């Protein structure tokens, strides 16, 4: 039985019915990561030994009637910025760290182990999670991430391998991280579902810091429902991360039973590629069956500029040693060896001004969102760039992304789901962004969308 492209719930049912063993499942994922994943530059390290040990334990426990929950025996991959013990390297996608090992597990890795999940791979990523200012897909020592939908198209970043490994059916879910776009971008370009949780919902302990006040960890999977199952396992307070929230989280998979109240920001498709705009406008027709859609206008604020200033200042500080030492000269992308120097000159006063404005924006956007379940918009304004081509990025100011700027600066949850294919056969996505701590609301909206569409069940040609 092939296990590729099967959801966590489907695999879980087979594991519990004895139709599938955790060890066989892990072996199949490892094989597929090695073959298909290898062609997509999705994998940094296969964690075969640890995977088989965890899978054998899951097999023993499930046979003995000890059930740790929906992730028990389910394989996954982790973006290679999450610390792993046991001699498994954690490279941050960067050549200078290709052999660097930690002696502890990130909290997310530990929580997934406690939930019985099976770590099969550390997955490829853009070096330093894109924090050095990359402009084109070849910005990782493992090569450019490739979308399962075309051998010539980028998988997105910075959680490149997390997107392509799920999109190619190598693993049922993966963990990624987002500072600004790094979950929603690969989810879109690889045709999968990605959840960016509320800032503080998931502990960042053991994860590479790109920007302390912007970084979030979250799942990429085949469905919104699967993302909820994973979030349930990894969410919660952690003494090792003082920014993690004490608010409890339990995934609620029940339908709300009422129409959704959705909002669209006026001009949200301005600047989007025509194929993205067309797919989004068509998606709105489907969404009208789920509830109401109102066009809204956000307060006039320099959202993108504000978020960029925060990002430059924090990224510059988080990687200060490597920048000051000149170690960035060893990075893969030529622009990553230069751009970080410019960020030395962000004035403290401007950074603090951005943080002050951020507080104002957080209150204003909550005031807007309290009237709706979610704001909807394109997950990305463009499809994946061709390999070897420079792409337009909101982080550099080259592409519009008001929702991304507001959502990440205000720490709001968003789920990105497939909403169509371009005439060239490349995936396009739609996002549902909600109030802080309302992951269950945006997941419910995304589940409702996926119950009425089949975009998340379409399979890419490369697989």
């Amino acid at each position, binding site marked *: 039985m092939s296990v590729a492209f099967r959801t966590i719930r489907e695999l879980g049912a087979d594991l519990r019915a004895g139709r599938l063993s955790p060890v066989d499942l892990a072996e199949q994922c490892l094989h597929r990561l090695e073959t298909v994943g290898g062609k997509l530059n999705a994998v940094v390290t296969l964690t075969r030994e640890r995977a088989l040990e965890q899978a054998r334990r899951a097999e023993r426990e499930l046979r003995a009637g000890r059930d740790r929950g929906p992730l028990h025996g389910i394989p996954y991959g982790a973006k290679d910025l999450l610390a792993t013990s046991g001699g498994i390297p954690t490279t941050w996608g960067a050549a200078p760290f290709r052999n660097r090992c930690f002696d502890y597990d990130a909290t997310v890795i530990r929580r997934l182990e406690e939930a019985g999940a099976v770590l099969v791979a550390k997955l490829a990523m853009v070096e330093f999670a894109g924090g050095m200012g990359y402009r084109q897909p070849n910005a990782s020592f493992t090569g450019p991430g490739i979308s399962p939908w075309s051998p010539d198209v980028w998988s997105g970043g910075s959680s490149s391998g997390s997107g392509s490994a799920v999109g190619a059916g190598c693993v049922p879910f993966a963990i990624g991280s987002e500072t600004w776009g790094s979950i929603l971008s690969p989810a879109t370009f690889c045709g999968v579902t990605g959840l960016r949780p509320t800032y503080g919902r998931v502990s960042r302990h053991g994860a590479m810091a790109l920007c302390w*006040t912007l970084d979030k960890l979250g799942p990429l999977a085949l469905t919104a429902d699967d993302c909820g199952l994973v979030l349930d396992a990894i969410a919660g307070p952690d003494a090792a991360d003082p*920014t993690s929230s004490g608010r409890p989280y339990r995934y609620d998979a029940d339908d709300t039973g009422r129409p959704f109240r959705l909002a669209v920001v006026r001009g949200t498709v301005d600047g989007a590629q025509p194929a993205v705009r067309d797919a989004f406008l068509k998606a709105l027709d489907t969404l009208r069956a789920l509830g109401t859609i109102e066009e809204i206008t956000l307060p006039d*604020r*320099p959202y*993108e500029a504000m978020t*960029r200033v925060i990002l430059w200042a924090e990224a510059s500080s988080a990687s200060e040693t490597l920048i000051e030492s000149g170690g960035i000269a060893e990075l893969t992308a030529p622009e990553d060896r*230069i*751009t970080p120097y410019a960020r*030395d000159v962000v*004035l403290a006063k401007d950074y603090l001004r951005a943080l002050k404005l951020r507080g104002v924006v957080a209150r204003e956007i909550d005031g807007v969102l309290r009237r709706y379940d979610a704001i909807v918009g394109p997950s990305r304004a463009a499809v994946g760039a061709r390999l070897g081509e420079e792409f337009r990025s909101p982080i550099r100011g080259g592409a519009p992304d008001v929702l991304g700027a507001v959502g990440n600066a205000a720490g709001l949850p968003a789920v990105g789901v497939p909403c169509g294919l371009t005439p060239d056969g490349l995936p396009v996505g739609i996002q549902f962004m909600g109030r802080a701590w309302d992951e269950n609301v945006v997941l419910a909206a995304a589940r409702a969308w996926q119950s009425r569409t089949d975009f998340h069940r379409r399979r890419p040609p490369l697989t």
Partner: protein
Amino acid sequence: MAPVDDEAALLFALIRHRYGARLDEAQLAIVRETIDGMLRDVAALRAAAVPDNAEPVQSFVPFRADP
């Protein structure tokens, strides 16, 4: 307030002073271009109305080891 171009030149001079020895002219030109772009954003940020008494969103928690 000094024009952005002047500010960019001053900030670029600082970068050249700190890192000029390890960057060639083409690379320094990219640094200058990057600073110009950053200052366009900074100008937009400085133009936004923010009350002086708005507290920056950052958290600090006094530390005391247990017990």
